[in-house]
């Protein structure tokens, strides 16, 4: 075992994993995390805590992770390179491990321009692939990025994102291969709506034999309203919502119900795709719906490992 985390055990034993996420509050209340944790706990194997997602200042990911951990829920700590140089990244990793964090998701982060402090200085000292590389060396060789020794173990299960919907399409598999070369253990993809493109991407992934080298968790974003479907289709860089799905949401009597149905259908289809080892459900501000989706997609009960 690299980290001994629950997520690692489930994935390495060949079981289909379910993860979801908690966005920390724009404030100091631990209650917000606890409430989300309580809702998601029985239907997920681990919960991501986002790191100032969309560059909006929120409670830190590490503190959210500790709050979950105190409830016996396994966190996946997200960390972006936007806000930290290599000194802070490595230091935060040491602290996270000391506090018992075992899963780390390495991300570039949304550009600060999107957030609520667009005047801030972006750091980007290293990129997300270099961060994966650094964490792997910290874990496997017990060395810092500068080659100096780390005292103690750094047992981390290393995650990263992949976006099959970004361009250039052909590069997306090469980029995944690069992340694998850098040392990633698991991948959570961008939210999937365009099944056709996702299937094509997965076929390329299998052709390169990459599905055997990394665990891919397919991203699911339940759509709560017609407005959300339209917004994502139009405005969110990196997400592709096919017209048919927007039309389907528009035509539905109850858009929420339709959104749930679509999410469940997508999971059902994904379960059939060779090489996908789990799902990652991102129900931003709609955590309540995750247990039902997991249930209806036939993924309950969650395994005990």
């Amino acid at each position, binding site marked *: 075992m690299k980290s001994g985390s629950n997520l690692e055990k489930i994935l390495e034993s060949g079981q289909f994993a379910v993860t979801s996420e908690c966005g920390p509050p724009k404030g100091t209340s631990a209650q917000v995390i606890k409430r989300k944790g309580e809702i998601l706990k029985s239907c997920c194997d681990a919960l991501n805590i986002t790191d100032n997602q969309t560059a909006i200042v929120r409670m830190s990911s590490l503190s959210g992770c500790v709050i979950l951990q105190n409830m016996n829920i396994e966190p996946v700590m997200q960390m972006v390179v*936007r806000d930290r140089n*290599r000194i802070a990244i490595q230091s935060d990793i040491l602290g996270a491990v000391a506090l018992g964090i075992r899963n780390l998701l390495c991300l*570039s982060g*949304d*550009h600060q*321009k*999107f957030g609520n402090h667009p005047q801030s200085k*972006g750091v*980007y*000292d*290293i*990129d*997300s*692939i*270099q961060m994966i*590389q*650094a964490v792997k060396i910290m874990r496997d060789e017990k060395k810092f*990025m500068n080659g100096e020794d780390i005292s103690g173990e750094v047992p981390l299960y290393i995650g990263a*994102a*992949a*976006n099959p*919907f*970004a*361009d*250039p399409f052909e*590069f997306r598999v*090469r*980029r995944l*291969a*690069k992340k694998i*070369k*850098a040392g990633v253990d698991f991948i959570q993809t*961008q939210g999937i709506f365009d099944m056709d493109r996702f299937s094509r991407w997965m076929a390329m992934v299998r052709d390169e034999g990459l599905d055997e080298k990394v665990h891919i968790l397919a991203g699911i974003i339940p759509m709560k309203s017609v407005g959300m479907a339209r917004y994502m289709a139009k405005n969110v*860089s*990196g997400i592709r919502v096919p017209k048919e799905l927007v039309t389907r949401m528009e035509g539905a009597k109850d858009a929420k119900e339709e959104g749930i149905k679509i999410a469940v259908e997508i999971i059902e289809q994904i379960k059939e795709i060779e090489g996908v080892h789990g799902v990652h459900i991102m129900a931003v501000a709609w955590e309540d719906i995750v247990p039902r989706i997991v249930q209806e997609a036939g993924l309950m009960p969650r395994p005990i490992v």
Partner: protein
Amino acid sequence: MIIAERKPLDELMAMLDPFEKILIVGCGMCMKACSAGGNKEVEALAAAVRSLRQEKGRPVSITEKTLGMQCSPKHVLQLSDSIKEFDAVLSMGCGAGVNFLADNYPQSVILPALNTKFIGVTVEDGVWSERCIGCGDCILDRTGGLCPIARCSKSLLNGPCGGSMNGKCEISRDLDCVWHLIYERLKGLNQLYRLDELFPYKDWSTSSHGGPRKIIREDLKA
């Protein structure tokens, strides 16, 4: 070249408000080339300041002078006889020019007329765009000659992020994703394998993060 843009007139008027005898100094190199601070711009700014101050009933005396360049001693020292006569010197040089005037004339008030923007190119008449941040350790051999440090919004080194779509950067649909351009270029050059290499951590100590920089060439020293 270095590209700059003139500050808004309001800001300049406020800056010049306490002064009566002003020298406006242009630069005949980059600032002339990017139409921010050459002799023409010096003339236009001087005229604008004169008339605005006239309207306010506080006329000024402005002298115009454009140096060949503001970043070389030979040119900057041409002001040594006259500069004492002025209450303030408004430099239409880039930030380096302003600094160099201040370095050389400790007794004079030196003010910046421009906002210095970047090292870039003239894309077409009236359009300039950034190409280099002067990181001090050029990597363009590995990226098809296009710079991801200057031109990628996140200075990524290992290819396009998950926000790159239809050739555009996630931060704006008006901005090309340079990693998309690099991809296309390397593909055309049959060098896509370049993108499979893990790009080593960048050493930023050669950039401004290593502190202010200096080059000394013994072979050229007087």
